[in-house]
């Protein structure tokens, strides 16, 4: 005897893709942060911080500046130094963006494109932020606090939002979204 499928109200059916996105986003984010907090993740996190500091030093050198690297610390000849600790290297922001891109209904090709472009955009901005704080801190402690606590925080939030917005627009234009939304 065939069973009658339980009819799902149209309103609920329409909300399914949104609920699917929200749940998958939360899951991916928690999983990503969890992986970062595990010992191997912490090792990668620290190594990544040191890599960014070395990149920053190289960039400063290219522009004729001087800085010394001590582990994850960038030190000016005058003694002032900024440190890239956990949370300074933008990995948390990257995990957030990755979770959103992975959770959003799109083709894997577009997701790969979003992950690569998003990571690059966030890290370019983060290195710019780190270098600017390195110089601002040598100039003024008050400006350093403002730039660190307000300016760059806002810019990073805007940067991540704009990346996601542009990527979603790209997905939308490609037509993948409508298929996935079913």
């Amino acid at each position, binding site marked *: 005897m065939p069973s009658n499928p339980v009819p799902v109200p149209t309103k609920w059916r329409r909300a399914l893709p949104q609920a699917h996105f929200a749940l998958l986003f939360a899951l991916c*984010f928690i999983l990503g942060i969890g992986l970062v907090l595990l010992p191997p993740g912490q090792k990668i996190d620290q190594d990544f911080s040191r890599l960014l500091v070395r990149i920053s030093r190289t960039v400063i050198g290219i522009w004729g500046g001087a800085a010394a690297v*001590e582990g994850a610390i960038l030190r000016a000849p005058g003694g002032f130094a900024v440190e890239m*600790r956990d949370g*300074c290297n933008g990995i*948390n922001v990257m995990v957030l963006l990755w979770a*959103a891109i992975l959770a959003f209904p799109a083709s894997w090709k577009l997701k790969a494109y979003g992950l690569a472009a998003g990571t690059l955009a966030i890290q370019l901005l983060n290195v710019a932020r780190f270098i600017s704080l390195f110089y601002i801190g040598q100039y003024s402690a008050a400006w350093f606090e403002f730039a660190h606590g307000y300016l760059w925080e806002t810019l990073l939030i805007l940067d*991540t*939002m704009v990346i996601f917005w542009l990527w979603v627009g790209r997905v939308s234009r490609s037509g993948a979204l409508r298929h996935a939304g079913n």
Partner: protein
Amino acid sequence: MILSTTKEQIKTYSMFGLTRVVLGFMAVSVWTGVSLAGTISGNVADYNAADVRSASGVLTVPANVAVYTATSTITIGSSFIVTLPSGFTFGSAPSLTSSGTATFSLASGGTGSRSATFTVATANLTSGQTVNLQGFTVHGATALGTITPVANALPITLQAVGTDASPLSFPAFASAQGATAVFVGAIQFIDETPPSNATEFLASPDTLTAVISAIAISAQTTDPTVGSVPVLGSNGLVNSISNSDTATVTISGNFRGIARVFSSHVSDCSSSINNGSVSLGSAVIPNVPVNIEVFFCETGSGAILGSDPNGFSGVAVSHGTSTDFLSAPVNVEFPGIICYRGSVGGCDANFVPPPLAIPTPALSSWAMIGLAAIILLFGAWKLKATPATP
């Protein structure tokens, strides 16, 4: 008449004189503390406070916690009252013995009561003889679950009714931390010469990891303030702690440039027991084994290391997850020396490290939460706004 008057006067004067003598003696007795009552002494029962908690205040009290010495004859039939501290009750029937032939029978109180009344039997208790309180158990000694120094020990009282005007008190019940620790700091040099530039410890070759101290945590067997008083377990025997117990050790000092602290069974830090957490001013190492020597090691982050030329400023031991002890007073035999060293031997007091680096977090926690919410809402809105294909 005259004679009669004289006799009356003499009688009056004599009466007056006797009163003066009695009053004078009483005054001197009160002033000097001399009395005809007995004296009390004893041996402090000093318990491991953590063990008292584990045993819910049920303790075995060893014999001779209180000893009464008679200074006058106490006759057969006299009563003798033993009273425990407030909240304590006898868990077993107490008994008294004497150094003479006198015996004591329990007349009232005892098990379940705070006090016990005995009757002197067999023979009188004569001056100089002692009365010893034999071993017994107590219930309700939960007050000793909080550390009670010997100086503030809870009193037991003994009173020979009719002889002692008031109960004689002896501070008999104390409690201590339960464990003790010996700490020895290491001598380490931070190599200020290139290529280390004060980011590594001096060795051949220089190294990021170095041993900074050793500690031995063991059961407290004597009181930390009165060394002659033994520390007991709740069973009345010498205190002990299990080999499976662990402690949390906090070391205060300059941990600048240190990325990791850990405990190790070996002084070369080649293996690790447990990782700790480290901040600029302190290192906390949990799960430190007891009853064995343990070494503490630290690993630099590659940044400039901080020095402690006068040694670590403090060491504290707490019980961690163990319940066998509350904490451990630490005997710092040597606080250690960690100092900068140049091309010549000894500490270089002239080396001044550059200022500390300022951490630069990308986003605060609240900003992360806000950003996550915005992305979530935007994604959901976009999905809603885009019509699904039939």
